């Protein structure tokens, strides 16, 4: 499998703080790739660099064979990378359906076709019944689902999910995991996810990257990574080991 997304020595500094420090990894086409790490490890900054919300200070980001580092967020999305936000940002006053239509209109120029596509996604994420409600009226788990649906509406090749599972109830976690696995299997959608819920990571991810203080300290299959002494140390502290 060829790499759909590859990062080479990507760095980002905020004044004195090095948030992301020379991180390199490659995500094969069709993979579900998880990024884990303690709070403040630089996971969301890494996402912002890939999605174009921030420009890296150094290194290269290549998506589908083309460099994308420093492109504007909308340009990155048009190339086929869709993202969700850790702190969800639906369009609050718009209805649930219109939120997803706004995403679907990127590829479908006809509003009717975009609406059909949006409704199919809303059924999949169990939001169809609530489609005429304003997005601001949804509960947090529903808003997270709406974010994923809206991102998917842009028909991405790569989906960046920033903690869409954290904060869900256990049954909801299982449903989200099932939907993501389905999407990955059906259409070969590549997913990169930041996640704290290890149950979901273990169930979904084909590969895991561990970040700590901006550097990649381990990468491998989920089973191998959780046994890695460096990972255990960063999560639990040295004395426990």
């Amino acid at each position, binding site marked *: 499998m060829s790499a759909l997304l590859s990062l080479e020595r990507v760095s980002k500094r905020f004044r004195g703080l090095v948030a992301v420090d020379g991180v390199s990894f490659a995500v094969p086409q069709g993979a579900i790739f998880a990024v884990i790490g303690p709070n403040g490890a630089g996971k969301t900054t890494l996402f912002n660099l890939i*999605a174009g*919300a921030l420009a890296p200070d150094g290194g290269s980001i290549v998506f589908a064979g083309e460099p994308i580092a420093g492109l*504007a*967020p*909308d340009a990155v*999305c*048009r190339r086929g990378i*869709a*993202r969700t*936000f850790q702190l969800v*940002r*639906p*369009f*609050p*006053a*718009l*209805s649930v*359906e*219109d939120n997803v*239509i*706004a*995403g679907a*209109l*990127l590829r479908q*120029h006809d*509003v009717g076709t*975009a609406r059909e596509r949006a409704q199919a996604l809303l059924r999949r994420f169990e939001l169809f019944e609530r489609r*005429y409600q304003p997005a601001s009226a949804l509960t947090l788990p529903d808003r997270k689902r709406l974010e994923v649906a*809206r*991102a998917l*509406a*842009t028909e991405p090749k790569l989906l960046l999910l920033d903690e869409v599972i954290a904060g869900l109830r256990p049954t909801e976690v299982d449903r989200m995991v099932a939907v993501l696995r389905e999407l990955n299997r059906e259409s070969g959608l590549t997913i990169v996810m930041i996640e704290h819920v290890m149950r979901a990571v273990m169930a979904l991810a084909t590969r895991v990257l561990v970040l700590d203080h901006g550097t990649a300290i381990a990468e491998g299959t989920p089973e191998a990574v959780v046994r890695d002494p460096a990972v255990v140390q960063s999560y639990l502290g040295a004395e426990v080991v």
Partner: protein
Amino acid sequence: MTVAVITRLADDVPRRTLILLGILLAALLVAPWIVNDYLLTVLIVTLYSAYTGQAWNIMMGFAGQLSLGNALYAGLGAYLAAALFTDFGIGPWIGFLASIPVAAACGAIIGFLAFRFGVAGVYFAILTIAFGEFARIGFDHLTIVNASAGLFLPVAQYAHNDLWRLRGDPTMFYYVILAATVLAFVLCRLLLRSRIGYFWLAIREDEQAARAVGIDTFRYKMYAVVISAAATSFAGVFYAFFYNNLFPEQVFNIGRSIEMILGPVIGGVGTLFGPILGAFVLNGLAETLNATMSAVGLDLPGAKEVFYGLCLLFVILALPEGVWPPLARRLGFDKGKR
């Protein structure tokens, strides 16, 4: 094609909304035969403010960009059409065609400066005020349009209404501004229900999230400013030919810009019917106030402005969405999909 457009316009509009709009339109169409000359003038002023409010709403209500300088575009249309008429005998409709690119270009310059360099929110509003003031002061010294002495259109008694040259009685002007208001309403509805409308609303709601779903926010904000500016310039052409005199101090006054936004703010920013309802509420109340004051023999200059201020205060405190959204919910006019 006409049928297709009408079907699309009426698509999933609740029946009662269509009936209400039909009754309203019919009432407005027969109004000149019922009301006296004074009330007809009030209706013209009201529709003028509905039209300019609708045009302003494209920018603020749809795309979320607060303009406090829309008088600039009306002023440009007014001066251009009036100058072409008085100096070259060129009619107002050609004048309007000429004012579209001028106003649009002016909007594009302001939009480019603001959106390229990240001037947003209140700062964008200040920028639009600044350009309005440049124009006011500039035209005050522009001798080819008589500077501060004012530009006058020849006024004479016309035996016939001349629609082509916009010379005639108030009834003709009434139907012209009514047609413009209806067209603006239809245009806004078509825009709002098309791709561009969804993108505008997304930008208004959350610009970062809009970019994350691939919307080129710079481009779509530019469209909003340019369309709003071009539409507003027609109001200026109408103004020039209706009042027959133009003074920079009046036409480009920031007060004109504020008047344009009062209707939609009171009626409901971002709604299609809000600018129209707001214009009627505001002008209706102001006329009632006038009539009451003259009946009791009171003459208080500035009472109208104070009254507008109180209306605005009331709406902001009691009906932050404007008058129309809660009214529409109560009357069951919001059962459509949007």
